[in-house]
């Protein structure tokens, strides 16, 4: 049939329309899949960075995904017969369209008549309704990939600003944990700020002059670039707003009687003359070894820095873990020794909360000295023998829940009490069982009884019971099965009785 004939025939026209919609749906699904693959490549780039996952690889993955999707779409393109089968099934037209399509060239009168009926039916159909646009399954994969990529992007943005995509995300995270983030950020900021400095040098001169003129007094001498940087990152810490003149590119005001600092090099020279330690600068940032460490220290001067807080928290956690691991080994002996010492009224060794002694939770490193003093006081109290009566149980009640050693001791005691209670319970239960007597009545409902005994599971012993089953009691149709059943039972009983 030529193209015009196909278009003119409502049957083939309907099938063609359905086929187009079907292929469009497939194309949508494959395109979504290709997009998902591309986003997955981007996610890999965000995760691994350009060091491990070069950017052209993302383009390669995207191209590969598109090619694979195209190939899949081409391979899965449905035939007219296949589309008509789906059309029949979804529109509930009893396979009339598909049969007519299959026998389209058949000259048999029945086929002609059937084709005519199918053509009339096709004229009333809306083929697109059988193939509505739906979200393909790969759409969910795309959404998941997009979500993952967004999460990685957010994480990376948080760890390195601006996005350079050089190092891998785990590497950045490790750096951040070690506290090298400030150095990295500073190293990244300085080239940019140098450029800003060159651009804004002239304007800054004028602004500085205006400020001096407005105040009527020379400004205070700055504390150096380190503080300037700190103030820039945390202006609220000093209670003043960030002004444009505070940036690195501004000519900093000098001490009284000195020339105004025009550049960072001037400031370094001035610091060298005064014998001040070298402040972190662009030379340090570009330096290979000592730069990051110094800048990390400089960054750590800010108590409100997020990374400093994170580092402090991690160091505290590691310190506690170390104390726990050391304390658990010696906990028993130390607790016992402490108990003995308390009973005898002797002071505890050096007076410090030694290994296995309770440690104060929730106290940061800044307060460690105070906690040491407090524990000294506690040791003194113990040495006074005030807690001698309680220390025989392995720790005072006041110290419960404050250290690993005491907690474990409590647990053991609790377990012992629970076991004791369980023993009493089982004893009571056993006595009750021994004295129990009575009758049991089992009621069964009348009705047709069916053979439902699973042979393997129940271990039935009909052979042992000696019962007889009459042939007439079993329907004829089931006699062979009943016979087979008893054969199996007999075999099982033979195996069990050697």
């Amino acid at each position, binding site marked *: 049939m030529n193209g015009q004939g196909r278009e003119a025939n409502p049957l083939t026209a309907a099938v063609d329309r359905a086929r187009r919609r079907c292929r469009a749906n497939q194309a949508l699904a494959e395109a979504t899949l290709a997009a998902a693959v591309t986003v997955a490549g981007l996610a890999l780039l965000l995760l691994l960075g350009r060091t491990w996952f070069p950017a052209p690889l993302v383009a390669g993955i995207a191209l590969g995904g598109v090619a694979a999707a195209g190939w899949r779409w081409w391979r899965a393109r449905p035939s007219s017969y296949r589309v008509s089968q789906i059309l*029949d099934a979804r529109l509930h037209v009893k396979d009339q369209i598909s*049969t007519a399509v299959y*026998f389209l060239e058949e000259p048999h*009168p*029945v086929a002609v008549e059937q084709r005519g*009926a199918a053509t009339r039916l096709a004229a009333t159909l809306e083929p697109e309704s059988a193939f509505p646009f739906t979200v393909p399954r790969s759409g969910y994969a795309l959404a998941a990939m997009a979500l993952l990529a967004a999460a990685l992007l957010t994480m990376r943005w948080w760890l390195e600003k601006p996005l350079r995509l050089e190092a891998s995300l785990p590497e950045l995270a490790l750096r951040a944990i070690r506290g090298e983030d400030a150095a990295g950020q500073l190293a990244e900021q300085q080239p940019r700020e140098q450029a800003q400095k060159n651009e804004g040098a002239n304007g800054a001169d004028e602004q500085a002059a205006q400020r001096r003129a407005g105040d009527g007094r020379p400004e205070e001498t700055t504390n150096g670039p380190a503080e300037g940087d700190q103030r820039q990152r945390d202006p609220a810490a000093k209670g003043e707003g960030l002004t444009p003149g505070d940036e690195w590119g501004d000519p900093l005001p000098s001490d009284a009687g000195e020339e105004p600092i025009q550049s960072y090099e001037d400031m370094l020279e001035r610091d060298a003359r005064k014998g001040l330690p070298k402040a972190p600068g662009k030379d340090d940032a570009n330096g290979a070894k000592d730069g990051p460490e110094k800048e990390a220290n400089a960054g750590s001067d800010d108590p409100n820095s997020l990374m400093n807080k994170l580092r402090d928290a991690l160091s505290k956690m590691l310190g506690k873990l170390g104390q726990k691991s050391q304390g658990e080994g010696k906990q028993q002996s130390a607790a016992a020794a402490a108990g003995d010492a308390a009973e005898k009224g002797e002071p505890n060794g050096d007076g410090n909360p030694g290994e296995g002694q309770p440690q104060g939770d929730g106290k940061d490193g800044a307060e460690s000295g105070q906690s040491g003093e407090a524990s000294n006081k506690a040791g003194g109290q113990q040495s006074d023998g005030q807690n001698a009566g309680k220390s025989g149980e392995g720790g005072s009640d006041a110290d419960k829940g404050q250290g690993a050693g005491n907690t474990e001791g409590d647990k053991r005691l609790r377990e012992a009490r629970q076991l004791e209670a369980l023993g009493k319970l089982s004893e009571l239960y056993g006595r009750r069982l021994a004295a129990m007597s009575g009758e049991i009545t089992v009621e069964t409902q009348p009705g047709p009884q069916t053979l439902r005994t699973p042979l393997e599971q129940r271990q039935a012993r009909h052979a042992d019971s000696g019962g007889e089953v009459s042939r*007439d009691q079993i329907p004829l149709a089931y006699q062979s099965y009943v016979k087979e059943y008893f054969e199996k039972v007999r075999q099982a009983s033979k195996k069990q009785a050697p």
Partner: protein
Amino acid sequence: MTSSDPSLPQASQQIDVVRREIGKLIVGHQEVVDGVLIALLAGGHVLLEGVPGLGKTTLLRTLSRALQLKYSRIQFTPDLMPADIVGSMIMETDGNGIKNLRFQSGPVFAHLVLADEINRATPKTQSALLEAMQERTVTSGTVTHELEDPFLVMATQNPLEMEGTYPLPEAQLDRFLMKILVRYPTRQELDLIVQRTMAASQPQIERVVDRAQILEVRRAAREVLVAPHVRDFATSLVLATQPEQAEAHALAKRYIRYGSSPRGAQALILGGRVLALMRGRWNASIDDLSELALPCLRHRIILNFDAHAEGKTPDSILTEILAAIPTPARTH
């Protein structure tokens, strides 16, 4: 299509006339009536199973009256002999006093044979029907007699009262195109049955279709188109019931001892064609085949011990298998 073949409306109309005529006497049981007509037009035989009093025998007698066909009824009993069914050679003396042996045909020589309570006869007698049902011939001595078309055996059996009965052998069961379960009538149907049977006069059944017309409709049914995917559905369904096949359904592997024979697929296609014709279509559909799957296959699968022990029936297993057969709607 030849000139003698009826057109589609004509064939459907003739079938409808017969259904209406049967409906004068038989209340409800439309699927049973349709099943018997499908078996007649597809050239098969039908086995009806149901408790006594549901109108099985009445239905078949009514059908034979509505069609202008030769009808005979055989009441199967344990002492019934094969010769009582197929006939026997008798000694006959002609006018000259010469004695000759003549074949006296039995009740099987009819168009519609009602084998009532077929499972009460001995297997030997039951087997006498085997050749007639499959080959449409009867052999007596050395002479083979052909049976006239259409030939339909309508057998009934009672699932109760199993004492002294002989279940039909699998080979004979397989020769029935369909096994139809006759169920109890609904409240409304029962009320109508009581009204009709208690009336002063019984409705008269007229002969509405003759033998030639039935044969024409039967030929037309053979012309109904079956697309490959519909054929494939029948094949898949039959293979899914065979536990030793790779395509077997998990339930078949667990509960079926012997699956359906190829006759099951033939029955599905033949029945589907007639059903399509009855519904005014020149093509069989997957829906037609699905509708006939239970009556065409339930007597062709033999369950194993586990199935009986767990209370599984052929219908429950087939229903699950049917739902798992891939169709265009399910696979896309």
